[in-house]
């Protein structure tokens, strides 16, 4: 009987202990507001992390009552969906242009409108860009971090090795194909590679090709949009890939590159040319220490077609919907400090550029204007003395991009449209006998179903 009593006491003590410790854990520390913010992508260099931490320290010095916890963050469709569902996103996180509006409509982002309208530079925003972060009710639910246009990145060293002029990158798709063939033949490295993974990136790049030829993936808006994946330009783009893969054999042997993998392969010097956002140089430096002398970037070749344009997109900063009012206010201060001030405040722009330079991080990476053209030119002027990216090697892009028509990503069910295209691209690159027309028909039906469901 005695042993039973002792057992009961021990069990009760264990339970009470658990309760007590959880109660202690929920105690709040004074008036300080704690927020977590998306920092750098996993695998960033120590120098990049040091630079980010320096900015956090500066912010905390400016706002002593706010405590910032940096959280490594990389937007990928599956991880974002999982974190969103689990409620484990940081207080401030980033989403692509394609997702913000729908997330806002679903009540999955906090309403920032009252805070944004108080910002002194509110009226200077590029209206088209701000619209990407505005939901159907007119609430601002995200603020722009950066905008990009798709670009053709190339390895200048491989161009030279292949006997090509790195200052004269290809300007037509026919030239891309020829140069890729030459690079592949002369250097043994793939002349042109594409993201072709089943994570929506294959569809993203194929859409870029189709836009450059004059095609579109959708007509109309919202759940009433019509999928047009199987248009003649998509067939043309896929036939071009097929020829490069199976006739020229200029695309190497790896056909499951995702966004990070392809950057890594390029930084390692194993890729002649590839398509990605114009701002990808930052990642090439921060994660893979690319050799700047090898890097070159030019515009996406556009076909002689009045509808041909370059796919543009971008990233927005948003806040979790379930945060407390003081956390929301603190989060807005961070967005203002970290994302926006370097573009609108001379003092902050210069300070930011200096910190980046001191930590050997890129300053002057090609990006598109978030504010009006006047503000964009002004901000570029402020940081001009600190530009440390190989700007001359970026001239083919910088000289051409503002002459190109910028086409936004498919508006309805963007990720589903891309996902439907993934399998088609994969098939063309891994099966010589792919029935392109049939596969596109199936992909179109899949995308159309997703659009109708608003998925």
């Amino acid at each position, binding site marked *: *009987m005695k042993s*039973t009593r002792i*057992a*009961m006491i021990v*069990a*009760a003590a*264990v*339970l009470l202990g*658990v309760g007590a410790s959880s109660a202690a854990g929920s105690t709040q520390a004074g008036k300080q507001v704690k927020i977590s913010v998306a920092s750098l992508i996993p695998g960033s260099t120590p120098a990049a992390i040091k630079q980010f931490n320096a900015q956090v320290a500066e912010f905390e010095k400016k706002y002593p009552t706010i405590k910032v916890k940096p959280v490594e963050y990389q*937007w*990928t*469709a*599956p*991880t*974002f*969906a*999982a974190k*969103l*569902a689990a409620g484990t996103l940081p207080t401030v996180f980033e*989403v*692509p242009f394609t*997702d913000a509006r*729908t*997330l806002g409509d*679903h*009540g*999955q982002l906090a309403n920032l409108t009252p805070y944004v309208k108080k910002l002194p530079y509110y009226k200077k925003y590029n209206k088209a860009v701000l619209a990407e972060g505005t939901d159907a009710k007119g609430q601002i639910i995200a603020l722009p971090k950066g905008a990009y246009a798709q670009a053709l990145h190339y390895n200048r060293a491989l161009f030279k090795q292949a006997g090509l002029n790195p200052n004269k990158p290809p300007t037509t798709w026919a030239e891309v194909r020829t140069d890729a063939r030459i690079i592949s033949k002369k250097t043994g490295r793939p002349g042109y590679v594409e993201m072709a*993974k*089943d*994570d929506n990136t294959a569809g993203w790049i194929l859409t870029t090709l189709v836009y450059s030829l004059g095609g579109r993936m959708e007509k109309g808006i919202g759940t009433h949009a019509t999928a047009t994946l199987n248009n003649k330009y998509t067939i043309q783009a896929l036939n071009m890939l097929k020829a490069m893969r199976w006739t020229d054999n200029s695309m*190497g*042997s*790896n*056909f*499951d590159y995702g966004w990070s993998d392809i950057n890594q392969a390029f930084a390692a010097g194993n890729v002649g040319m590839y398509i990605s956002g114009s701002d990808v140089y930052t990642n090439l430096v921060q994660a893979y220490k690319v050799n700047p002398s090898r890097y070159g970037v030019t515009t996406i070749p556009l076909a002689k077609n009045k509808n041909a344009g370059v796919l543009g997109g971008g990233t927005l900063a948003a806040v979790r*919907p379930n945060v407390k009012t003081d956390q929301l206010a603190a989060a807005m201060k961070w967005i203002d400090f970290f994302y926006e001030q370097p573009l609108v405040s001379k003092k902050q722009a210069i300070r930011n550029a200096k910190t980046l330079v001191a930590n050997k991080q890129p300053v002057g990476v090609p990006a598109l204007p978030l504010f009006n053209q006047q503000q964009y030119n002004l901000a570029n002027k402020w940081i001009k003395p600190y530009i440390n990216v190989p700007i001359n090697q970026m001239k083919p892009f910088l000289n051409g991009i503002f002459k190109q028509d910028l086409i936004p990503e498919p508006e309805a069910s963007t*990720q*589903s449209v891309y*996902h439907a295209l*993934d*399998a*088609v691209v*994969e*098939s063309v*690159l*891994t*099966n010589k006998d*792919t029935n392109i027309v049939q*596969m596109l028909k*199936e992909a179109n*039906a*899949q995308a159309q179903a997703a659009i109708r469901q608003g*998925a």
Partner: protein
Amino acid sequence: MATVDQPREPAVTSDRGLPRRFTVPRRTPLTWVRGGGLAAFLFLLPLLFVFGAFSWYPIVRTAIMSFQHTNLVQAPTWVGFQNFSAVWHDPQFPVAVKNTAYFALLALVFGYPIPLIAAVLMSEVRKRRGVYSAIAYLPVVIPPVVAVLLWKTFYDASSLGVFNTVLHRVGLGPYPWLQSQQWAMPSLVLESTWANAGATMIIYLAALTGVNPELYEAASADGAGLLRKVWHITLPQIRGVLLVTLILQIIGTAQVFLEPYLFTSGGPANATLTVMLLIYNYAFGNSLGGDYGKATALSLMLAGFLAVFSLVYLRATRSWSTR
């Protein structure tokens, strides 16, 4: 230990010669507490909580969600069997079922006999059996993600890949491995067999120790060779274990996720899209919030199929396994 609840009086007859009823002490909350019931319950409580929260609650929630449309943020709406119908009519569903069956078949044909053969051969070894067992078991110890990364370098489709380099020396290849719709699934099965065979082999080795050696001696005296001994003695003697490992393998392969997810993400062109990967894609493939209704509906369909299959299998093999 305290003894309670036992009849304390022997059965005796009453004054009138009729059997008197046993006197059973009445169970009250107090006797339950004194008997250690409360202590047992308190000790059990954390386990019940953990089991309930992390096993049963998700199962019940899954069943409920399969009849709902929800993004886990807004209030869910009841949609009846709509999710099941949507899964059934999804063109990717038959592809995933076919691929899963193909994986299971390949794993059965190649993956099932290998641990058995290895165990039989190892049981014949007289020296350094421990070393061989450790080597065979080593892949099980390697974390799966690390193993996949390792095998990705083996499967490099260029002529510099490990397998292609080796095969080139004997005049074969280069083969595209994971980059081909035909080769991708067999490549996954090969790695999966390597990774899992060790664990099954250990089970067989343990089972083989239970076989009476006199049977082998008698068979040898009758002039039986190794193959005849394996066929007529080993396999019948360990048939119970064989049946259990077979059903476990079928259940395991029907739920294959790790290899296609890490190696190919279901590609190329859905060639390695399995049922589990399709469930994952429903739930997390779209960054705007997954279709959790369809994901849970397909999960229930898979669970239901495996439950029925297991029942039929156990009934069909009952007589054989207990003979």
